[in-house]
């Protein structure tokens, strides 16, 4: 089991009902972690429309889940 903190923004935060949560997961990579949390919270956004960041920098969906890391799922942005 790997422990990490997950950050939620915008519609993902509304769906999860929180802006962050501590997770313990067996997910091999960030893709699997999102799918696990998607099942739990009912997120409608598929991975194809998201980006992922770890510890404040964009990351790859194939990256492994690191112990103690902070993972953020980034929905399509709409600034400007």
């Amino acid at each position: 089991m790997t422990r990490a903190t997950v950050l939620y923004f915008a519609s993902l935060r509304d769906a999860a009902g929180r802006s962050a949560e501590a997770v313990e997961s067996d997910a091999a990579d960030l893709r699997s972690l999102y799918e696990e949390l998607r099942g739990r919270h009912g997120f409608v956004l598929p991975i194809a429309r998201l980006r992922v960041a770890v510890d404040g920098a964009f990351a790859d969906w194939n990256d492994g889940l690191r112990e103690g890391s902070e993972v953020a799922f980034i929905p399509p942005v709409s600034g400007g």
Partner: protein
Amino acid sequence: MPRFRLSDAPFDIEPLRSALLGARAGAFSSFEGWVRDHNEGRAVLGLRYEAYAALAEAEGERVIDEALAKFEIVDARCVHRIGDLAIGDLAVWVGVSAAHRDAAFAASRYIIDEVKARVPIWKHERYAGGDAGWLHPDG
């Protein structure tokens, strides 16, 4: 001094513009995005911008670094509001100084395009009908 920043309150443009003035720069291009009273045919009452601040600041700075590398400009700045905004409020400001206008226009356009496409900031709109929602545009 960061060239990109988030602001959780209204900000003055004049100091940003002044910071870009210089004897070398003959051309200055700026872009402003304001909150409109409508979006895609719906009446908008107000909106809120939320950001993943640490990543937004890093990515915004990267956009400006790219503009400085790609175009013959002297300097550039961008400030993006977060929090609650009303109709007519300034949401984003971009300013670019350069020796010539070609580069000033091109860089100013590049910065606003990339900020809108890449920087983790989200817009939440409240509509006249009472409903509201996050904007998550398709690619």
